[in-house]
Structure formats: structure tokens, C-alpha cells
């Protein structure tokens, strides 16, 4: 269907549209018109992504004179693929209606690991070794060597791509990662470098958060984006955590040992170069006097993750004299490692601000703040000069330099915490020095500054006024949409008691109570016997899940559960978890039915959908609070209180409830879908906890469902499922329409809209 929002003709690839999608588009357009940032909360299962894509592409189609680029950030690769698949659908539709002028180029961008097609490189198992494997074949000096000596291996795909030079372009279209690989294989061009090259020409770029938020990556991938771009952070409820993670580094004993090995290897390389090719080192010295900015002209393959935090003017400065010479820099690093090793040898927990830490480095190791700041780039330059290609071997020294640069750059918003052992395992000495970022706004600030419109959207952004404070920005539009339902297709309940009427909770003093564990087991057992297809269970942590599964196994509850449904479990091993998920879906597809055990805040909770028959019921066992004794968390809470006046308790509850809402929100994909949500903890019945849930869940949480025991919940579940099995009118009953057709939208035209929508 196509329709008009003010001056923009919107092309939408379906015959119907939800009213909330329509109002979402209106708000989004307002933000684009105002050239400002916006914050939009819309329930999961109402088609946010397609609404976003179709408005923004239509918006730029209607304004051909300005080239608006869409930068769409997802949290995971599979969400990236899904977004691109939706975009493909939309693009086909637009081509059909507008003809060739609607053509756009849209690409997904990922790491070499996900894009490389060279089988020898791909054989490596993790990302870093794939990166290094690629460098070994494509670094400028390797290729120079190969030009003289045909026995030096190079990458055929990259050579072809280079040879094709400016002819190597992607024709317009929408390319998922898979499409890129297929295209690359067909043409014989390297898809990774092709995609990186095409980023500057593409109308839509889809990539992961890190490419924009992590300064190390953002520097090389995202520097060529123009200001007019629209940046979208989808599923952004955890964006503050991504931001602080991007700027946090920790140093452990293994890191220091590895770094020492790295330094020895670098020292050998320096000696070798001195003996054979001393001029290179001299040339580097001269370059460093000129300043680091020259680095910008490096060949594309030699580029790597750039400096984590340096503002542009520093890049033009000359590198401090004491680290210009390779040997001197090496000495500085050795002293730094030595100093850090001394700090790790502590028996008590220590907490320090970066300023005093830098002062202490200066007095004990004689390294000043400016030198620290340059460490990361200086190391990079040195490794290039020394023609080191196996970069994956040098991760430890990179970590140290990363740490030095961050600690030398930021005076506030961070703290350094040294812990001699993990509090939960005090008998195992495992000292760790953590530089942890508390201020999410630091990492995202450049994004807000650089781009005209930044859209932050998710199904869970409640309370919506907290995010602007955490991220320190001023949205021009900030709205939370509710869901207009054709029928009551979600059924949230709060279960406070087991069938024996004893309270259930994962509160610290209750969680290991055998009665609670048994009641949780009985709850699941009852549910598997009445709920069809898939059930998802979320636990508060891996260790809790492991414990409870073992107990259920010993007591035989697990066996009884297996009589009804197959059981799959999320583990810390991604491959295993992915396969378990795949099998889970197969089991739901073939009608066998299955239960999936997962962890709140885990990878599955972050990005996997359990829509339709893949999830008819979610059980959230407990309230997923963070580990409140964590020193880092305490430091962050203190910072939040002092800087933003956010109370500790409020933040913790907000954080736990957004995770819980995130977990249960994964069951709904559209209004034709239906699902139940059980919050199994007595604490959810308290108003201060419950009220932090997003409004679209709260509005369906009836008062009678606030204090249930297992048998009552079972009864409600049966009733609900029976109701959902009845045929219903898709368009919505009398009065409010929940599905709008093109005519409806035309009729609404002016004025009539409000009465239909609200």
C-alpha cells in the first residue's frame, strides 16, 4: 500500500498497516523534519523495523536533492540479516511501484570472519585469526614481496578486486551478508573489502552497534559518513551497557604475561630490522615527528582498529619525543607492564580514579599522561613498520596500550578497580585490574554530535525519561506507543506462590530453598502439560540455572517434563546454543513441542525471537537483578547518583525490569500471534517493581492476575489458550480498528485520524 504523510509518499510493502505503525511513522517524520534526535518505544510485535525502514527510505525518495543515508545499527548479526531481508521485501515493492528511480544500494557490513570467501583464511577459528590470516595475504608489504617472488601466497579474491580497481562496484540492490559472499564468489572479488569500499556509496548500511560506538572500530569504518545521515539504534534498551563496555578494559595476570612475550618478540623484530633495514625505523621516526594524522593515507588492508579515543586535533600533534624511537617506546611499555604487575599484587580491593592512577604511574614508572594517551597509535605504527601480520598474537600488548590510552584520555566517568579474587570464589586467587567506564554518554557523544538525526528505539525503553539522562542528549521527539490489540493476545501473570501456597522468589535468602526450587519445577511441569508447542524459561543467571536443572534432574521433575516436551538449554558455548536453538525450532515445527531454558541478560534473551508457535509461554523465574555486590556495579551506581541524581535502588530495579520485559517480550511478533508471560516471583506483585514494566505489558496485567498460585495460573492458562483457539476478526471489532487498509488511511486524511487511533 502507499499513503501520504504530509509531503511524503510512504511505500509500505503490505496490504494493511497497524495504527501504531502509522503513528510511529508520523513521529519519526517529525524528528527527521526537525533534524533532531528521537526516542521511540513501541511494543515488540508491532513491526517497528519495517515501519522505520519504509518511512526513512520513502523520506529520502521524496527528497531526491538531499542524499539521506540510513545507518541502521543492530545488536547482532542475525538481526542484521533479518533487517536486510525486510528491506529487500520493501525494496522490491518500491521498485514495482516507482520503477528504477527507487533503486537503492543497501549492504550489511560485518567482520572478515563473516564475509571472507577465501577458504584458507576461513579455516581459522575465531575472528582475530581470520583477521590475521587475511593480513598475511593482503598486507601491502606482503603484496609487494609477492610481486617480486611468486612463491609468496596472496589472496586471489583481493588481487582480483584490486585489479578491477574502480570497476569493482556493487550494482544497486539489497545485499545480506550471504548475498555479498555469493556476489564476491561469482565475480572473484573480495566481499569484505568490496563492502567496506561500498559503504560510502550505499544508501542504507546495516551493521552492528560497535561499528559506530566502539571508537576503535568507528574510526576506520564510519569516518566517511556524512552529517545528513540518519542513525538508527534498534533494540536499544541496552545501549547504555554497550556504550560502557566499549570503553572498559581489564588487565589480568595472563594479559601481562602475554604482553611481556609480545614485547620480547617486538624487541627481536627491532633488532632484526636494525641489522637489515635500519632506514625503515628512521623513516618512521620522521613520520612521527610530523604527527599521527599522516596515518590516514595507509593502504586499506593495513588499516586496523584505530585509536580508541583521540580527538582529531591530537592526531595532528607530534608524538611525544620519548616514544618516537622504537626502543624507547618499548622501554616505556615494559615499565608500564612492570607497574601494572606490581599493582595486581595486592591483597585488598582497591578503587581509584583515573587521575590519581595516572599520577601514580607518573611517579612510579615515570610515564606522563600525554605519553599514555599516545600508546595505542604508537604501537600500531610500530607494528606496521615492523611488518607484523600475525596480529592475533599481539592482542595482549594491544590491550595494555588500549588501557593506557583510555586512562590517559579520560579524567572522569571512569574508575579503576583492583580485585585480588572473585568474591564468589575467594579461594582462587585471580587478581584483576579493571578500568571501567560508568558514563554511557562518553561513547555515544561523538555519534550525537556528528549525525543530524539519531533514532533510539526498542520495545522496552521504560521509563522513557531515563534514557536521555543516561546518554546525555536532548531528543526532539520522545514517545511511548501502546499496542492496539484485536483481541487480548498477550496474557501476563504474576505468580507469587506455588501450589502449596508458599511464596516463590529468587531473593538471595530464598533462592536455594528446596521448596522454591520444587515449586518452580512443579509450575513448569504443569505448564508443559497444557501449553502447546514451545515454552521458554528464563533464569536469573547461569549458575542458578545449572543448579536448578541439576536439582530437577535429581528429583525426577526433569524426567517428567521430558515426558511432555523435549528440553533444550542455553550454555556458554555459542555453537552449542545455536544448535540447541535450531533443534528447538525444529521440534516446535514438527509438533513435538519443546522447552528452552535460557538466561536473562544472556545472548538468547538479547536477540532471539520466540514468536508464534516457537513460544506460547514465557516463564521468568525470579527478578533478574544484577549481582549487587559487584564492585564495578557499586562504582557505577555511585557515579550515577552523584552525576545524574539517579537513586541506586531505582536504577537496579529499572535495570532488572527492563531485562525481564525484554525476555518476555520476545513471544509476540504480530497481532495474529499470541502468548502468555508468567513472572514467577513474589516481588513482581509489589507496585514499585511492577510499575517499571513497559506500559504495553502493564495494560494487559489485570489485577486478578497479580497474586496467583500455580493452580490458578494453570486455570488461567487453559482458559486463555481455549480463547485464542477461536476464530477472530483480523480487522478488529467494533469501534477501534486494529488493522488499517489504504482506504482507511485516506479517509483519516485530516482530523479523522485521532478518533480512530486514540
Amino acid at each position: 500500500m502507499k499513503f501520504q504523510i504530509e509531503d511524503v509518499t510512504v511505500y509500505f510493502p503490505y496490504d494493511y498497516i497497524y495504527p501504531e505503525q502509522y503513528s510511529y511513522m508520523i513521529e519519526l517524520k517529525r524528528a527527521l523534519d526537525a533534524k533532531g534526535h528521537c526516542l521511540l518505544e513501541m511494543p515488540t510485535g508491532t513491526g517497528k523495523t519495517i515501519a522505520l525502514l519504509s518511512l526513512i527510505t520513502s523520506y529520502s525518495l521524496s527528497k531526491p536533492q538531499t542524499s539521506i543515508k540510513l545507518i541502521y545499527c543492530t545488536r547482532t548479526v542475525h538481526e542484521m540479516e533479518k533487517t536486510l531481508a525486510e528491506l529487500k521485501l520493501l525494496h522490491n515493492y518500491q521498485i514495482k511501484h516507482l520503477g528504477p528511480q527507487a533503486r537503492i544500494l543497501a549492504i550489511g557490513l560485518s567482520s572478515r570472519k563473516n564475509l571472507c570467501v577465501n577458504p584458507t583464511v576461513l579455516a581459522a577459528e575465531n575472528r582475530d585469526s581470520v583477521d590475521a590470516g587475511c593480513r598475511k595475504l593482503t598486507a601491502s608489504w606482503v603484496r609487494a614481496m609477492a610481486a617480486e617472488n611468486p612463491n609468496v601466497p596472496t589472496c586471489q579474491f583481493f588481487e582480483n578486486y584490486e585489479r578491477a580497481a574502480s570497476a569493482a562496484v556493487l550494482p544497486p540492490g539489497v545485499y545480506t551478508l550471504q548475498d555479498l559472499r555469493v556476489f564476491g564468489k561469482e565475480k572473484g572479488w573480495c566481499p569484505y573489502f568490496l563492502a567496506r569500499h561500498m559503504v560510502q556509496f550505499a544508501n542504507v548500511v546495516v551493521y552492528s552497534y560497535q561499528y559506530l560506538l566502539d571508537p576503535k572500530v568507528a574510526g576506520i569504518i564510519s569516518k566517511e559518513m556524512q552529517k545528513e545521515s540518519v542513525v538508527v539504534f534498534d533494540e536499544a534498551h541496552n545501549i547504555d551497557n554497550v556504550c560502557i563496555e566499549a570503553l572498559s578494559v581489564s588487565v589480568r595476570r595472563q594479559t601481562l604475561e602475554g604482553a611481556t612475550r609480545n614485547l620480547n618478540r617486538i624487541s627481536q623484530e627491532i633488532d632484526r630490522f636494525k641489522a637489515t633495514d635500519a632506514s625503515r625505523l628512521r623513516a618512521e621516526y620522521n613520520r612521527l615527528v610530523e604527527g599521527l594524522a599522516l596515518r590516514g593515507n595507509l593502504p586499506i588492508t593495513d588499516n586496523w582498529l584505530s585509536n580508541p579515543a583521540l580527538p582529531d586535533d591530537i592526531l595532528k600533534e607530534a608524538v611525544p619525543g620519548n616514544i618516537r624511537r622504537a626502543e624507547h617506546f618499548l622501554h616505556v611499555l615494559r615499565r608500564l607492564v612492570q607497574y601494572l604487575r606490581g599493582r595486581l599484587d595486592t591483597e585488598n580491593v582497591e578503587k581509584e580514579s583515573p587521575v590519581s592512577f595516572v599520577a601514580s604511574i607518573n611517579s612510579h614508572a615515570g610515564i606522563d599522561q600525554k605519553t599514555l594517551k599516545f600508546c595505542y597509535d604508537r604501537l600500531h605504527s610500530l607494528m606496521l613498520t615492523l611488518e607484523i601480520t600475525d596480529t592475533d598474537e599481539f592482542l595482549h600488548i594491544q590491550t595494555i596500550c588500549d588501557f593506557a590510552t583510555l586512562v590517559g584520555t579520560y579524567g572522569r566517568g571512569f574508575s579503576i578497580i583492583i580485585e585480588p579474587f572473585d568474591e564468589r570464589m575467594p579461594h582462587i586467587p585471580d587478581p584483576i585490574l579493571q578500568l571501567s567506564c560508568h558514563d554511557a554518554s562518553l561513547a555515544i557523544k561523538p555519534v550525537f554530535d556528528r549525525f543530524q538525526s539519531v533514532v533510539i528505539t526498542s520495545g522496552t525503553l521504560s521509563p522513557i525519561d531515563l534514557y536521555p539522562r543516561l546518554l546525555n542528549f536532548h531528543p526532539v521527539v520522545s514517545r511511548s506507543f501502546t499496542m492496539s490489540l484485536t483481541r487480548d493476545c498477550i496474557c501476563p501473570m504474576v505468580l507469587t506462590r506455588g501450589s502449596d501456597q508458599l511464596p516463590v522468589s529468587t531473593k538471595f535468602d530464598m533462592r536455594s530453598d528446596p521448596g522454591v526450587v520444587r515449586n518452580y519445577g512443579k509450575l513448569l511441569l504443569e505448564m508443559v502439560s497444557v501449553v502447546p508447542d514451545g515454552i521458554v524459561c528464563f533464569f536469573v543467571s547461569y549458575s542458578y540455572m545449572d543448579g536448578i536443572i541439576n536439582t530437577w534432574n535429581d528429583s525426577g521433575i526433569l524426567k517428567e517434563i521430558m515426558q511432555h516436551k523435549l528440553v533444550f538449554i542455553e550454555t556458554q558455548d555459542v555453537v552449542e546454543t545455536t544448535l540447541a536453538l535450531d533443534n528447538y525450532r525444529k521440534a516446535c515445527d514438527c509438533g513435538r513441542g519443546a522447552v528452552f531454558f535460557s538466561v536473562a541478560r544472556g545472548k538468547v534473551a538479547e536477540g532471539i525471537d520466540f514468536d508464534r508457535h516457537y513460544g506460547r509461554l514465557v516463564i521468568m523465574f525470579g527478578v533478574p537483578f544484577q549481582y549487587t555486590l559487584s564492585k564495578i556495579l557499586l562504582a557505577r551506581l555511585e557515579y550515577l547518583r552523584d552525576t545524574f541524581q539517579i537513586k541506586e535502588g531505582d536504577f537496579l530495579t529499572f535495570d532488572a525490569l527492563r531485562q525481564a520485559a525484554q525476555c518476555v517480550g520476545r513471544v509476540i511478533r504480530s497481532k495474529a500471534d499470541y502468548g502468555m508471560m508468567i513472572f514467577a516471583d513474589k516481588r513482581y506483585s509489589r507496585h514499585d517493581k511492577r510499575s517499571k514494566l513497559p506500559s504495553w505489558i502493564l495494560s494487559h496485567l489485570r489485577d486478578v492476575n497479580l497474586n496467583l498460585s500455580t493452580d490458578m495460573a494453570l486455570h488461567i492458562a487453559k482458559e486463555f489458550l481455549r480463547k485464542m483457539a477461536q476464530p477472530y476478526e483480523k480487522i478488529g471489532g467494533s469501534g477501534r480498528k486494529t488493522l488499517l487498509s489504504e482506504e482507511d488511511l485516506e479517509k483519516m486524511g485530516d482530523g479523522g485520524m485521532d478518533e480512530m487511533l486514540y
Partner: protein
Amino acid sequence: MASTHVTKRAKYKTTIKDPGTPGTLRMTFEKILFVPHNPKSAGKLDVEFRYIKGQKHTKEGSNKPPWLNLTNNQNGSFIFEFENYSDLQECRDFVGKVLAKGGEVSEKPTVSYPDEQLSAAEMELRIKLLQEDSELQKLHKQFVLSGVLTETEFWATRKKLLDREVSKKTKQRLGFKSAMISDIKPSTDGRTNKVTFNLTPEVILQIFAEKPAVHRAFLSYVPNKMSERTFWTKYFRAEYLHSTKNSIAAAAEAAEDEELAVFLKQDDILASEAQKKIRRVDPTLDMEADEGDDYTHLPDHGIFREGNKEMTESQNELYKRSLSQDINRHAAVVLEGRAVDVELEDTKAVAEALAQSKQKSSNKGESDGDISRERLDRLSRMTEIEDLQGPNTLPLAPLCIKVLDALTNSISNTKYHIGKNPQESVLDRLPRKTKEELLHHWTSILELLKHFWASYPITTTYLYAKVNRLKDAMSNIYPQLEEIKGSVPSELRHQVSLLVRPMHQALDAAIQHYEASMQKRSAQSGERPNGYV
């Protein structure tokens, strides 16, 4: 049909308690012949098949011997006891075939429509369906044989049934049990510390399927290197070590005994299979790809010890296997289903059969193209929003008949009450015969109505004739229903009339519609002689 006759050794018994006369049973399409071994004994039998009405037989696994009970139309029966179940099965199938054929022969001449060219297979399938479902058979008899519906019409509404039957023609295989094999608990003799495990070939097959490394070890060790007994003893020793969750002890024992170590280590075959499988998973849940993209998961970047990332002990990782892994693996194997279809008797045979079937499936491995297409399909299935799309099925008006729904509701409600509260159920209090009759009328009315309403609007003469036929059949039901009402004791009459009322209503509505449309038609045909016939 494969053979025209069956000959088996059997005992003929006149009653169940009768010890039986040993002899030979010979069955052809026409008759059943039993000749005792001892020519002097009296049990000689010569019956024509057309007198045989039905058959009953004992089930394998029940503690009864293999008996076949043939009932004739005078309610007499002939019981044969076979030597084993496979003989019984063969005879049973044969009798089934002949009985079905008999029915077919009698119906063919009554209704034969030239537009239907049925293959033998289709015919056979229909017969099989009728045999399996007695209710269906009754309906078929009632309407098709009496000429109310044609054979084609009868089956046209059951196309789905036919299709489904065709697609699953192969026999359904038994899957694995849902319970974990780790549940096999040893039995102790109570005096010593010795434990005994009871292994069946079934369990062994499951162990092999779930743990390919154990399977491989079995193939290479037994019987050359060790006896089967030692093999399993070692296996359970390893399982015991796992269950103690003492990875240090496990590591120590593994260091001493290399065969034991095989059981304790992570399964390397599984790991490599996982690598293969991961390439074909649904891209919308491929979390492994994230790992390769996520720059915050550089070592030592991001936040540790925050509470949500937990530490794992890295030492002795090699010998650690979690319950979660076992459960996942078990569920995956159950889902894959049983690959082997051999008689489970000999473990060696089981092991080899499994190896062969694996070989086959790996040879079959699909090409890259297939995989990527499959992945794309799944991706697009995951992205579309179903209810925003316009109707994408063929323009087919859904059959929505209020009366029919009401009828279905009332009967299913009554049925539902049975499940809920057996004491109060109406149907249960009725005499068995009445209950069955009522239910039968209900299904036959449904069948008739379905055809009746589906014939409107009447566009051809054929439909016209059909509606007339249906109407007649429906009016015949009224007196039958009255008869039922009359036959029950007076205290139940009210209940029965409650049950009958919706049937009446449905029939009334149909007949009313019929008459109204007939009137309209006669009025129309006056004006438009060239209209509908």
C-alpha cells in the same frame, strides 16, 4: 495383491477354552479351509468367505497366544491359534484384504460413474481407510451404497485424508524415548558394593546415537581389544566419574587408562559435526556469527565480574561435561529420530547398522546451493508479518454455516462434559445403544449437511439432482430420530430430546432453504427459460 492364498499351521478352536485341533489353515479369496493333521479328528472346516463378517486378533506383547477370531454372520466364530505372531499377521492382512474386496464387489455395480478412473492404488487406499475407521465405513455404507452420495462425492470432501495417507505411506517408525538414558539406575544386591546395570539393545542404540565417540570406540575395541562386558564396565565407570562432578579425579583416572579416557573426554566427533551443522542453521538465530562480529569481545575488553558473566574454571575443562550438554544432545537425537531399523538383538549388529546409516546420510550431504537456498527460505519465513498481508490463499469463501456450527457446538459440548465430569454426563447415562445411534446420526447428519450446503448455489443439473437426493435422505432421518426418542426410558426422554433438538434444527434449516430455493427457481424458470436448468 500379492498372493491369492495363504497356508499356515494352526490350531482350530471352537471356544477360547478349547485346547484346539492342530492342523493346516488354507485361505483363498473364496473360502477358508481347515484340515486337521489327524484325519480322524472332527475339526474339519470349510467356510465360504462371504459368510465372514469380521475378524479379531490378539495383540503382540499381550500375554495371550496369537489368536485370530473370525466371526460369521450368524454370530458364530472360528478361533485359530497360530505358532507365532508373524503367521497371525499374514493371515490377518489376508482376511482384511478379502473382506474389503467383498465389500467392494457388492458396491461396484450399484454406483459406477464413468468420470472416475481410479488407479488400483487409490482404490486400495480408500479401502484401507474404510477398514481403519469404522465410523467412516458406516457412513460410506449408509450413503454411498444407498445411492445418496456417489463414491466421488463422498471422497471429494475427504481429499485431505487421501493426500495425507498417500504421503505417509511408509510405515511410521518408532522414535526414541523422551527419557534420558542417564536415567538408567543400577540395581544393587544390597550386600556388597557391586552394582548391576541392565542394558538392553534399545538403550545401547541410544547411547551410540548420542555419543558417537563411544560408538566409534565400540567398533574399534570390541571384541578384538576387550570383551563387550569390559567395554560397558569401563563406560559406566566413566559415567560414574562424571556424575561425581569431580573433574580432577576424572582427569587422574583418564591419565592412567587411555580407553577410559575416551569416555571421559569431550566428544570430538560431536564437535566436528557441530561445525558442519552450524553452517545450515537458520540465519535468524545464528549467534555464532555474532561472535565474529562483536568487537567488545576481544579478550579483556568489556566488563568482567559484573555478575552476569560468570567465570568457568579453565583447568580440567577437557574432562568436564555438563548436564546441559547431555540434555541438549539427547533432545537433538530424539528429534533426529531413529536411523536404524534392524531387529535389536545383537549389539554388534546395532553398532554396525548405525555406522552404515551414518555413512549413507553423510554421502547424501547436500550441496552448498541447497543449503543457502534453505537458509534464505527460512529467513524470509521469519521476516514476513502474517496478518498485515492481504489474503494470499485462493479466493475461496470459507464455509460458514451458523446452524452447522451450532450443531457441532452442542454435540462437542456434551462430549466435552463427559471429560470434565463423568458422573453428570448426559450421553453416558443413556443406554449404550442409544448413545451410539445418536452419535452416528450426528455424524451422518453432518455429512449430509456438508454436502447439502456445499451444493448451493445450484448451477448445474448435476447439483440439482444431488440436492434432491440429499433432501430425501435427510427427510428419512426424522422418523429415525423419533424412534430413538421413543425407545429410551421416560426419565431420559427429556435429555434425549435436548440432544436431538439441534439436529432437528439443522435439518429444518436445510429443508427450509431447499423449499425456498425451489420456489424461487420455479418462479424464475417462468421468466427465464434460458436460465439455470
